[in-house]
């Protein structure tokens, strides 16, 4: 072949390849549009500040999902419910969606065996599912968020079967299933989280909220609830197993005041007020991305670790960098209102 001729052929071939690639890129769904981060906020019934916080958060605009804590499962598959705060009426008018949470955290502990008992009994599991679906449909919520912690390791299969059936029922009514799961960083983990197969849960649920803030708890050693490196490990583990467009990173607005081996939970506002009251100067721990201070009261040494908007900013950036669906803020009421500005800024800093 002569030079010009082969060049013509080559040009034609390259043009064809480029045209095909361009076509594929343009036709591929999702590639061309700019993703918007979903911001979920949990609304507790036990904190009267929640309603006002919700008002502020919705007014500031970023919240797209609200999950009021709505029910606890009871033995036999029933539900113990609370009336939703009238404040949730704001949600619809602002275009956010309502995904009430059913949670097995009762009497200050996760009732894992109770839920495992329901799931293991086919008739109880079916009853449980029907009650949830009926409530979602009757109230015309957008869907439901299932948050069952500390299930025994062997109940994972039953959980998946239950959630699959629940998801199918919800989808039949055009409702969505959100699932909140404890944090994991490896397949080998402490037995409290072994029941949660991210891969299977990610396939079943419409979205998966990872509670990436349980590194410290009331009876643990004092420390940050969501150290940054640990959060990064969680995201790294999760994105290999869950589609990014389903994955939401949990952000904490709280901490603990530990004394004598026992911690008391504090919202950001409470911790800041406490520091002022005892005259302590909170120190920013850059590694943990959290604040900490110590004080003495009644002869007892107190250690406080808490999260604020600055902590959330660092973790929000992790979510943005990993291309996740969004963040799930635990919780409204006493949170650092600076949080609601992050929707505008966190992405740019990522």
């Amino acid at each position, binding site marked *: *072949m002569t030079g010009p*001729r082969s060049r*013509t*052929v080559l040009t*034609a*071939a390259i043009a*064809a*390849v480029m045209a*095909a*690639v361009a076509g*594929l890129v343009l036709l591929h769904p999702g590639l061309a549009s700019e993703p918007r981060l979903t911001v979920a906020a949990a609304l507790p019934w036990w904190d009267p500040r929640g309603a006002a916080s919700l008002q502020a958060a919705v007014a500031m605009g970023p919240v797209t999902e609200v999950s009021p804590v709505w029910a606890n499962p009871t033995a036999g598959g029933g539900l113990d419910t609370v009336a939703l705060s009238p404040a949730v009426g704001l949600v619809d008018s602002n275009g956010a969606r309502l995904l009430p949470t059913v949670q097995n955290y009762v009497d200050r502990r996760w009732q894992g065996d109770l839920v495992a008992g329901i799931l293991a009994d086919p008739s109880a599991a079916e009853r449980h599912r029907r009650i949830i679906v009926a409530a979602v449909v009757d109230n015309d919520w957008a869907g439901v968020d299932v948050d069952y912690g500390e299930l025994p*390791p*062997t109940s*994972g*299969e039953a959980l*998946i*079967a239950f959630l*699959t059936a629940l998801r199918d029922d919800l989808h039949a009514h055009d409702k969505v299933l959100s699932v909140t799961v404890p944090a994991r960083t490896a*397949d*080998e983990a*402490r*037995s409290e989280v*072994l*029941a949660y*197969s*991210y*891969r*299977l849960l*990610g*396939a079943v649920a419409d979205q998966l909220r990872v509670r990436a803030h349980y590194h410290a708890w009331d009876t643990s050693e004092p420390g940050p609830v969501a150290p940054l490196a640990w959060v990064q490990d969680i995201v790294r583990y999760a994105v*290999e*197993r869950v*589609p990014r467009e389903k994955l939401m990173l949990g952000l904490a607005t709280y901490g603990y005041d530990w004394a004598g081996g026992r911690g008391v939970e504090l919202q950001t506002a409470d911790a800041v007020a406490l520091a002022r009251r005892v005259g302590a100067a909170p120190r920013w721990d850059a590694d943990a991305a959290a604040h900490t201070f110590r004080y003495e009261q009644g002869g007892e040494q107190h250690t406080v670790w808490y999260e604020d908007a600055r902590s959330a900013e660092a973790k929000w950036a992790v979510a943005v960098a990993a291309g996740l669906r969004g963040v799930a803020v635990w919780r409204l009421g006493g949170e650092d209102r600076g949080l609601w500005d992050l929707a505008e800024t966190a992405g740019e800093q990522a």
Partner: protein
Amino acid sequence: MDPSGRRWKRLRIAATVIGGVLLIVLAVAVPAVTSSPALAGATTPEGPTVAEVGDAPPVIGEGVLVRVVKLLRDGASVYGQDPFDGQVVTELSALEIDRAGDAEYALQWYGYDQAAGRTISLTFDDGPDPVYTPELLDLLAEHDVTATFFVTGEQVAKNPDVMRRIVREGHALGNHSLTHVDVGEATPFRSGLELVLSDRIMRAQTGWYASFFRMPYESFASSSMQADVRGILRAQQLGYVVTSHDFDPKDWAYASGELTGDIPMPPLGVQDHVTLLLHDAGGGDRSRTLEYVEELIPLARDAGYTFTTMPQVHPQLAERTGPAEVTGWDRATLALAQLVFVVPPVLLQGLLVLALVTMGGLGVLYTVLALLRARRSPRRTATEPLPASVLVAAYNEELVIRRTLQHVLASAHAVAEIVVVDDGSTDGTAAVVRDMAASEPRIRLLQQVNRGKWAALNLGFEQARQPVVVTLDADTLITPETIGALLARFHSPRVGAVAGVIKVGNRSRNVLTRWQALEYVTQIGVERAAAAYLDAIAIVPGACAAWRRTAVLEAGGYSEATLAEDCDLTLTLHQHGWQIEQAEDAVAYTEAPETADALVRQRVRWMFGTLQAVWRHRSMILRPRYGWLGMLVLPMSALAVLVPLLFTPFVTVVLLLMVVSGGLVPVLGYFALFSIFYGLLAVVAVRLLDERAAHLLMVPLYRVIFEPLRAYLIYSCLGSALRGVRLGWNKLARTAHMDATPAEPLPAPAVPTVAARQPVSRPTAVPA
């Protein structure tokens, strides 16, 4: 348009663009088709390697489903976790903890979670079979029994009706790989492909899916499962549950006669849940299996067993089967499978029938025509032979020209003149001719600067003084009768040219020359004789022929447009309305190529030239005006190239597969069939040309040489055409080897000791 011409550039660009688009489509389609539908769009998970699991992982649990689990230790508890999805699926009992020791992985049996009372699951592997599966379905329907069919993708693609019936009648399906491959041995790529493609074929064919798998060749012994870790891991990774069985009566061994006596019944009453392995296909007579099932059904029912499908007793399977959303990729896979498994046997049969019919039909037709022509007596001959000039074009023929001219001078029919055109030879050719001309006034020497053989011949035609010109190649030896015989065929003023009979002079040299000798005999003795009967001779070989001078000049003489100037000229004469004859008794001896290399070079030029000439005269094809030539001979010459061009790779692959699967015998059978056809043709040709029977000894070898040569020629011509390369005038090293022939009138001239190089002429009318 000329196959070597510039306009092929467009075709090449089109081919490049199509190739590029195909590549892109493949880049998209291959990952899409090979991704496991059982993972429902999720990425393929990472997991342990076979080495990590080990040769003999501890075996725990009970049941007929099996999986690899990772052992997680938490205090006193040990959990088994699916290593791919991270799901904890079991907690080990104290006994199992003991058995597991400190192993990192274990093989776990599980299942029968939903089995109540006594259940028996009949499972049938390797099907569906077009004969036995319907019979089995009749039997099962009669007794109201549903079973589980582990089908291979290949059989599913081949038997759509049986598959539809299995689904319609409420039986369960399972995956048994695409081609019944041993996944314990196969590479992960292969076993993945087998699983996924089979899955897609099932979806597309039945609208159902079943994301569970039974490994071909498995047995439920622990050692067998340990040996199959590779396959189990692969299936698990791709989202398939691996299913086994717990009773194997080895029905296949009774069918094949390896085992004799009664096929053993399952331990009814001893085992509450039975999963029975049987085969409804996979070679051999399956009626023993059917009898067994018929006998078992009442026995099992009397013992209190309920017949179930596997999904009915294993919820893990129930949630992995159901109506499928069939995707375009599934349908594409099914189409591909049909192309591979269904079309080839049908297409191959079609091609074989077509080949046998064309070869047989044409062979018979040609033979009959050749015989008719031979019996037509008395043969019309010219009452008074026209006076003739002999024309020899020579280029560097110093070594052979004298011998050739001596043979001409010895002709019984006295020629009026002998014109030798020296095409600018660089050796002593001109001197030899001049020397001979000094004592023989009929010899005229014309000289030109080297312009090629076609130009030398045209000069000779212009300068010749007689109405008929006999062309001979410089190395062709004629008999004393040759020229007279040629001239005798100008029996009518419509005859424009007469073809002589070329024989291989160096036949006894080696197998290639013997092969060519046989080919010349059959081509000339039967095919060209038949064509002559129909006035449809497509090629008058310039090496030994007689031409009406005015006809050639009127046609414009030889042209350099093709590599086969004699074929081109012959077709032009036909277009001008001239009749072409053949003279069986005008024999000339030529020297055939003795090496494969030389033969191939010669044949590439012939085939390419003939194609060029046919293309140049394509307006004659299928034109009734041109009689049998236009309606039969030219279309057949095009088909003779096109059909092998399209199907040779396919036939080669299928034949190789036939050899692999069925041994050499069936292939040799076909081969023999073709050889017999050809042999009959050769017998007639030998009789008609009055040749020696020794030629027939080459018949069995004929196709062994012919098929590869033809395949090579066709593709090398296609390559040349696509590259747009003009073939050079391949020159053949002459050896001057000639067998002593009885017809030879003169003592054989001294054999030159040095090989000379000369232009290769076309000695015969043989299209490759």
